[in-house]
């Protein structure tokens, strides 16, 4: 009998193969986080011994941790996968401010940039690592999620997916978002990383890092672009991250968990959900659904 992880793995591989078999020009959205690492691992398994027949796309907001970018480049090189980096140059030129206007920053450098990248390259299907357990708004999204013109999500017009038989047919201007990890939980992801020995960005493990506190969030200063305000000072602390994003928008947690087992152990005891570390989601409770309708992943 197969274990829970076996079944999740097989289903995700089936979804990846289905995407490649049915879509004209698919792409894998690579965000460098642990879910992306799992996704890439599954992609390599799905098409072995062939090289994955699709590229990876990283939408870079230019505010990612430096360790993330190093990890990204090394991974693409070692795994021999084509990597496309997309930066919304116009947005960067205008200058967004992740500190004082986080929602605009996310909208311009993430949502808008992703839409532009997909359109520019003509990708008809974008595979992402989002999981349904991350947020109530994601609980109802399909594995193959149809996006209309403008890449908008219409929660009321979703296609049923009985038996995992996916309808991938598209009209002009329509695209698909595909979520092979839909049925995984955060715990599943970590257990699978452990079982398969998948490498993840070291930021997930506790280490002494230069921290400061702003608006109640514990931040790790990754570069000089954000000046410290009066009263703020850098304090070295043992911290790690549960989720990775733009550094000024990603809160760290104090932790001694320096290896994989301790990280999972801490997670099993924790009483706070994963996205709570993301400053951008703290607005009204509906913020995720609203962002999705606008075309956010």
């Amino acid at each position, binding site marked *: *009998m*197969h*274990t*829970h*992880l*076996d079944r999740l*793995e*097989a*289903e995700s*591989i*089936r979804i990846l*193969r*289905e995407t*490649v*078999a049915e879509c004209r020009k698919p792409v894998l959205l690579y965000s460098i986080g642990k879910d992306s690492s799992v996704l890439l691992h599954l992609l390599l*398994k*799905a*098409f*072995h*011994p*062939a*090289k994955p027949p699709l590229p990876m796309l990283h939408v870079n907001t230019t505010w990612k941790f430096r360790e993330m970018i190093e990890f990204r480049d090394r991974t693409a090189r070692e795994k021999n996968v084509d990597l496309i980096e997309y930066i919304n140059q116009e947005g960067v030129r205008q200058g967004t401010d992740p500190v004082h206007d986080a929602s605009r920053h996310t909208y311009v450098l993430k949502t808008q940039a992703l839409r532009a990248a997909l359109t520019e390259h003509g990708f008809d299907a974008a595979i992402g690592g989002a999981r349904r*357990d991350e*947020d*109530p*708004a994601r*609980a*109802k999204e399909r594995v193959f999620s149809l996006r209309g013109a403008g890449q908008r999500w219409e*929660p*009321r017009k*979703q*296609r*049923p997916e*009985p*038996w995992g*038989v*996916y*309808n991938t*047919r598209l009209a002009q201007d329509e695209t698909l978002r595909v979520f092979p990890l*839909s*049925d995984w*939980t955060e*715990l*599943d992801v970590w*257990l699978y990383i*452990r*079982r398969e020995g998948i490498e993840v960005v070291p930021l997930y493990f506790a280490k002494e890092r230069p921290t400061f506190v702003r608006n109640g969030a514990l931040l790790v200063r990754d570069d000089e672009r954000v000046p410290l305000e009066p009263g703020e000072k850098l304090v070295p602390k043992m911290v790690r991250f549960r989720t990775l994003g733009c550094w000024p928008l990603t809160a760290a947690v104090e932790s001694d968990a320096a290896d994989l*087992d*301790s990280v*999972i*152990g801490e997670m*099993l005891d*924790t*009483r*706070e*959900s994963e996205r*709570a570390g993301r400053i951008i989601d703290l607005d009204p*409770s509906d913020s995720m*659904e*609203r962002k999705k309708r606008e075309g956010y992943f």
Partner: protein
Amino acid sequence: MKATSDTMVGELEAAAPALAARLAALENRDTLRFAMCGSVDDGKSTLLGRLLAEAGMVPDDRLAQMIRDSKKHGTCGGGPDYALLLDGLEAEREQGITIDVAWRYFGTDRRAFIVADCPGHAQYTRNMASGASSAELGVVLVDARAGVVTQTRRHAAILAMFGVQRVLFAVNKLDLIDYNHARYHAIEHECAQLAHDLGIEHADAIPVSAINADNLVKHSPATPWYTGKPLLEYLETVRVDRKVDAAFALPVQWVNRPDHKFRGYAGTIVGGRVAPGNEVVVLPSGRLSRVTRVIGGSAELEAAEAGQAVTLTLADQIDVSRGDVIADPTLPPEVAAQFACHLLWLDDTALLPGRRYLMKRATHTIGAQVTEIKYRIDPDTQAQLAATRLGANEIGVCNLSLDSEIAFRPYQDDRRLGGFILIDRDTNATVGCGTLDFGLRRDRNVQWQQLDVDRAARAKIKGQSPRCLWFTGLSGAGKSTIANLVERRLLADGFHTILLDGDNVRHGLNRDLGFTDADRVENIRRVAEVAKLMMDAGLIVLVSFISPFRAERRMARDLIGEAGFMEVFVDAPLGVCEERDVKGLYAKARAGKIANFTGIGSPYEAPESPEIHLRSDQESASDCASRVVKILVD
């Protein structure tokens, strides 16, 4: 000091192996997929939310958010509304209903649970399909005050149709019947009867109260007469038969050809086991070969079994494509193109027999039509009702005909090889889903006659390529006039032609047909079939039909074949056509004497990319005809 630090080290040393053991246990736990359903006010979301909270599986920040939201949207007078832990969409909060299947995930050290939380509202019955299709257990909520109601029957019937063989009836709101044992016992009996009537093998029941957390995680003192397991323990321990066929079968999903040296067939095994050296048959072609390698991820496997995603290589260079099924040749799946099936209709536009859809099943997509609705099933009584169409949420038993044969197993033996969806060719919507019950042998009785003289031979002695010119446009746009001119010129040039005119065909071949949706489809189908026969005779066929709907013209194109079909759009504005009104029909329609007249009471859907586009209000009929002849002859 020393003692303290020794103790700490000791604790740490003890904790690490304990953690490692726990992680190993978690890594090896199994899954239960269940569908949760019930009528709209039975308190389904509340039950699930409360179960998760009681079991300590809801993070603090999400609990806090729920308590905040309860004050704004809650239905518990500002007190904690556990349903809000689950309802994710703005619209459903505003409406207070759960409009779509929501997927929930939780787990204990024993088992991981994947829950399809199905909508209770009658109009969203169709949304249960996704949830029920993958469920190993159905949990049906019953309101203790009402007992088994219509929606309970409908949900149980859908679970049964989707092959869910174990159902748990959670009899909720027991507090509102004062934990009355006799009343509970009567409901339990009703539920068992319902399951029996539907052919569900195993039925269980648990008395609960979501509001008071009775029998969710712990035995409730309020129900001393209940000796079974509380809900969570039941879910952790219930045995479910994952029915997979014993014989090996793998629908080919992707042909992996990185270079000329390697050719592998990737897919997920739906039944049985496979190992290198096994003989296999490829269906529907029937070619035989032998497995040389079984690859799982990057590893060479000694064997693989149902549920695993693998890549196989074969000993022989044979033609295998996506959609084919590689199988055990001693117990192969059947091959058929005609089926008896159960069909659940999902779309607001009704199913019409004879209309052409796409069917997707496992890894295969193919043209399909429902040739006959045998009967519709009454959701309340399971009675068989006569039906000519199926509306949204209705279930029927139908005959299904595919464009070519596929390898399949009946749904009750194999969900993956027997479960399908139907897709509308125009809207691309998933309009229906169903189960292949058995193959119809019709094909074997009506063999295709082996024809020695074929279309190409007949066309050759006429010195032409058979074509179908399909003239479409409003009444009065000039279709018949132009088609007549085209035919005359072709004849003059020595071509062999035939003209099929809408009005004339309706006087003869199709005089039994009216103007209902079903009759319109049949009208076009017959004309397209006749046109196809005449093309087989080697003729150039001119069809002059208003054919206002894209779907109809698409059907004709599909039947006739892309290669020989040319859509000719005779385009003139409605005003111009109405002014001409050669037959006086517009006047009658305006006077209300003709219902559904195209352009007045019924729409005309202009072609999006016709092969030929004529503007008959700007060019003369003669010029239009010349253009058509020129394009055809060139």
